[in-house]
Structure formats: structure tokens, C-alpha cells
């Protein structure tokens, strides 16, 4: 209908529009659609990584994967890690943003310093944390023992549940600045009179947080949580470097299994099947994210 009523000018604009969007579409296809399709394709083969020798196996990789207990334990690990680290990131992030929003004298310095964990490379961060956590000469054990809280060195990375807790803590430390910055930006736009009206209406600090601050943060928190959930879900380097998935496989998350399958077990096809399964789960996150953001645009 609308095309029938298009004026020549509108048609010209439409053509120009297509022309302008074409490069983006091409690049999108090349870097997103192509790898996606080839991963799907690859997952239907048995591939030996070093030689890339392959033979068609159909859905056998998926059958094997779902039948093995490994998939489910890795999924549980991934969810525990994601939920744990994400919760801590959000709580720490909001808390720190609230602190930095106050008129404290070191505010601008603190605001820059807070970004430090987010900016430093994961490899460096992990090396530092491994030193901190080291059971023989780590500073943490040293301090705890000196303070008399423990009398034996604690094995932070080599035993459970310590390893999972340590990984979650380091993840929270590494990524909470992202939450701080996003929340702080939003905090600064909340009109001051809202707080003043709430004070006059008899709301104390806690009521003001729940009745004024939190509702205003809602939109930005939805976006932060979705983005961070996706990123944490597929986090690889931090966990890999910190525990390598261990002890045994107790911090082995899905991305680590994918890596192991592809480069340790040399099963590229199987790795692709794992990756595709992981993507299917992520798709749920993405759909929720898209729906949330679209709903907001519609109002």
C-alpha cells in the first residue's frame, strides 16, 4: 500500500537508504552470519582439529553431548558463576555508585580509580589475584593468619567451594566498575526535587532509595543486567587463567569446555556442537533483552 503512494522523492530517498545501509549489512553478514552458519555446519561433522579431517555424523555430536553428564554440570557451573558474579557486580556497583554520587572530597579521584579493575588486562589481573590467593606465599593467607582468623593457609583456588567463590569474587571485582559507571551516569540525571519531595513526605534514606532511586534506575539496570549476564555467561579468559576449570572440573563452564574440546581433545566438530548449544541458551537472554528494550521504546 505505502509503496503505491510513494512519491518519486520518497523512492529516491529509499534507494539512497539502501545504498547507505548496504556496507553495514555486508559486514554484518561476513562477521556474524557466516561464522554462525559455519559453526552450525561444523557441528554436524566429526572433525580432527590438527588436520581438519572431517566426516559427516549428523546430530551425533549433540546426542553425545546431551547424554554426557558433562554438559549439565558445565551448564550448572556456568549458571552458578553467572548468577553469583552478576549479583555481586550489581550490588557492589550500585553501592559504589551511590557512594561516589555523594559530595565526598575525593570524588573525582575515586571515580577514576574505580575504573582500574575494568581497564587492566585480564591476564595481569589474574596474575595479581593468583599471587593474592596463593596458599603458600599469598598475602591473603599471610594476613588472615597474622590476624589470627585462620591458623592454616586456605586453599583458595584448588578446593571446592573455594575455587568457585574465588572466581566469582574476582569476576565481580573485575566487572563491577562497568555497573558503577552506568548507574552513576543515571544517578546524576535524577531530579533533586524528587528527593526533596520525598523527604518532605516523610521518607527516610531507605525509603528514598526504594521509592525514588531504584525506580529511576530500573531501565538502566535492565540493560546492565542483560548485557552483563550475556558477557559473564560466555566469560572464558578469567576463569581459564585462574583455575583452568579446576579443581577437577568444578569451575568448568561452557566456554571452557568448548575450548577443551577444540584444542585439548582436538574435537572441533564436538566443540562446535557445544558452542551452538551455548548460543541457544544465550538466545534466551537475548530475546529477553530485546523485548525489554523494545517495550521501553514503545512507551
Amino acid at each position, binding site marked *: 500500500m505505502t509503496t503505491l503512494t510513494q512519491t518519486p522523492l520518497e523512492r529516491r530517498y529509499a534507494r539512497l537508504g539502501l545504498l547507505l545501509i548496504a556496507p553495514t549489512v555486508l559486514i554484518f553478514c561476513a562477521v556474524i552470519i557466516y561464522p554462525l552458519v559455519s559453526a552450525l555446519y561444523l557441528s554436524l561433522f566429526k572433525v580432527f582439529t590438527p588436520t581438519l579431517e572431517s566426516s559427516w555424523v549428523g546430530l551425533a555430536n549433540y546426542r553425545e553431548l546431551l547424554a554426557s553428564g558433562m554438559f549439565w554440570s558445565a551448564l550448572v557451573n556456568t549458571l552458578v558463576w553467572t548468577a553469583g558474579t552478576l549479583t555481586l557486580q550489581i550490588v557492589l556497583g550500585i553501592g559504589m555508585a551511590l557512594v561516589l554520587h555523594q559530595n565526598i572530597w575525593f570524588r573525582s579521584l575515586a571515580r577514576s580509580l574505580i575504573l582500574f579493575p575494568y581497564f587492566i588486562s585480564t591476564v595481569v589481573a589474574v596474575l595479581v589475584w593468583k599471587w593474592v590467593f596463593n596458599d603458600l606465599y599469598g598475602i591473603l593467607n599471610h594476613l588472615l593468619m597474622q590476624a589470627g582468623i585462620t591458623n592454616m593457609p586456605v586453599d583458595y583456588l584448588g578446593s571446592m567451594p573455594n575455587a568457585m567463590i574465588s572466581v566469582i569474587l574476582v569476576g565481580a571485582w573485575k566487572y563491577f566498575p562497568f555497573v558503577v559507571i552506568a548507574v552513576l551516569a543515571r544517578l546524576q540525571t535524577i531530579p533533586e526535587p*524528587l528527593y*526533596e519531595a*520525598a*523527604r*518532605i*513526605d*516523610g521518607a527516610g534514606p531507605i525509603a528514598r532509595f526504594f521509592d525514588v532511586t531504584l*525506580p*529511576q534506575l530500573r531501565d538502566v539496570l535492565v540493560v546492565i543486567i542483560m548485557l552483563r549476564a550475556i558477557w559473564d555467561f560466555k566469560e572464558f579468559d578469567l576463569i581459564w587463567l585462574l583455575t583452568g576449570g579446576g579443581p577437577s572440573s568444578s569451575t568448568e563452564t561452557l566456554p571452557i569446555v568448548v575450548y577443551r574440546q577444540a584444542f585439548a581433545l582436538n574435537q572441533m566438530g564436538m566443540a562446535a556442537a557445544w558452542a551452538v548449544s551455548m548460543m541457544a541458551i544465550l538466545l534466551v537472554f537475548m530475546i529477553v533483552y530485546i523485548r525489554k528494550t523494545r517495550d521501553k521504546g514503545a512507551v
Partner: protein
Amino acid sequence: MANVDFRTVVKSFGTFTALHGLDLSIKSGEFVALLGPSGCGKTTTLRMLAGLEFPTSGDIIIGDRRVNDLPPGERDIAMVFQSYALYPHMTVAENIAYPLKKRGVPKAERGPMVAKTAEMLHLTALLDRKPKQLSGGQQQRVALGRALIRDPKVFLLDEPLSNLDAKLRSQLRAELIELHRRLGRTMVYVTHDQLEAMTMADRIAIMEGGNLQQFAPPAEVYARPANRFVAGFIGTPGMTLMDGMLVQSGNGWAFETEGLRLRLPRLIDSAKPGAAAFGIRPEDVHLGSGDLTGEVVLTEATGHETIVTVAIAPGVRVIARIPGTPALRIGDRVPVTLDAARAHVFAAGPQGARLNHPSGTADADEAFNIATPLRVASKGVLS
């Protein structure tokens, strides 16, 4: 209901002093407007009363209680903000009920109170909407509702109508007057719009540069401005003010400026010769008869009246308010009378104190028992 007292309240922001010792006594049930130009300290005064800002020194009293150290929630006041400050995620009903909720009024009691308030403010049909879905006037009513529902001792309003269009403003003005009459609560109303202050307030507190200039009923502020600032600030078009010298002439006084000599009645006893200012309101300047001659410089007709600017001496212009649309053209020469019995004389300086008694006031007649039919004498040095 409660009276409100400011006792030599000083407020400084760092090195800048926004209020220099404010003394203000507001009676219980009174509607007081704080009026003044931008930056004079009106909002600061109101915010200190609300507890959102704390005085540097001095006392603030509500009822018989010194409230300096009380947080806003415990002062039993309600405030309407210029920006309305409605909670955006709550419905109209939730917004109005919020102060009750925070004071622990049970849900069952809140419902009927919200319904009653909404009805009073014509909001019943809008109770389920969010603030974003309301017009400015409706939002303003919700903000009023949130203030009214608690039945506080004192209502504080900071330019509540300034974001509305002229028509809505006059409508809400009438509603506020009616509301005040019905509730009889103390109201402190900040505005920079003198029309609002003049029409609504029982008394107007006129402020300038952090100082109270005059605190009096609207009619008195108009008829008897306490100083030159108030004289120039109140009234549109404003009073014509000219600088000159106060001189003794015979056993009376005269004012001299730019080749003009005006005889003055009713000066106060403490008046001294020297620099002074003479002021006359447009309605006290009459064209068509008189000893002075002026040249029409500008005419502005608004339909029911015409504002005429007349030059009566080189560099001396007065503004006259003439009913209807007189047949005057720019350049016309007209006889001019300044009704000096209704003139105002102030000491020199931007806030020079009043030096004469205006006509019709009790102490004026006491002080000057001479009903001088004063026409202004000119030395006839016109252009």
C-alpha cells in the same frame, strides 16, 4: 494551623550571603507571598522553612516550636515544587497517597482520603494515570493534592504556576484562593509575578538582594511603598521615578530636577534637604490641563487604556495612564498635571526610604493637617 516566624535568619553559601538577617512574622492562617526579582532569596527562604536548607544563624519557628534542627518530614509542612516533583513511576493515586503511606496511615484509610482529595481537585478520572500522561495543569493539581492530603500546618509553594500558560494560571490562581479560604491554612507562596502576589496574598513580603524591603497587604504595598525599590518594583507600568534634590522652600518642601521644581506636601519630620527621588504612578499623571507642558514621546494602547510617555523637561519623562484611546500623536504638546498629593518621595539610593506620607493614610492626616490642593509649579524651562 500555625504561625511562622523568621528571627534574624542569615543564610550564607560559602562566602556569599543570600539572606542578611530576615525577620518575618507570618500569622496563623495567613496567605503570604514572597515576591522579588530573581536571585533575591525567595526560594532560599522557603527551603529553610521546609528544612531543605539550614540557616547559618537565626531561628525559624513554626507554631511555638523552633524547627531549626527538625528534618523536613517532621516539620508538618507540605511543599509544592515549581517542577511538581511527582514520582514518575507511581500513579496519580499513589503519588497523592505517598505522604500518608510514609506516615503509616493504614491502606484502608488512605483510599477514601485520596478519593476525597482527588474530588476536590477534579482528579478523580485521572487517578490511574502516570504523571507523564498528564498535562502541566493536571500535574500541578496532583502536586497540590499530595500537599493537601496530609493537612499540614503550613503549605509552601515555590512558583507553582510559573510553568503554566496564562489562562490556566489565572484559573489555578482562583482555585488556590478558594482553597485557602476553605482550608484556612497558613500558606507561604513564592513568586516573581506581582499579579499573583497582589491578587492572592493577604500580605506580601517584598525582597531584594537578600533583604526584606516591605511586608504589608497588597493595597498598602501599592499605595505606600516603603522605599524606592518597592515603589519601582510594584505596578505595571511602573512608577515614574526621577532623581533630584530636596530643597526647603518657604515653610514647605520642593523637589528640583533638570529645570523642574515640584512643590511637595506631607514630608516626614526627619526629611532633610539633599539628594532624593520623586515618584509618581501613571494614574496620578493627568493630561489635558495643568501648569506643565509635555511632549508625547510614545503611546501604547491596550484597548481599555493607553499608556502615554510624556517628556516634561529635557531628560525628564513621565508615564501617564489614560482610560480609553485618546487622540494623541507622538510629538503632540499637551498640558500635564502631576498629582503631587499622591506623589512619593524617597531618600537617595536604590533602596532609599520613603520621606513623605501619602494621601489618605491616617498618619498623613495627622502629620499634615493642610489639605493643599497641590498643582505642580514649573519654572517653565521646557525644551
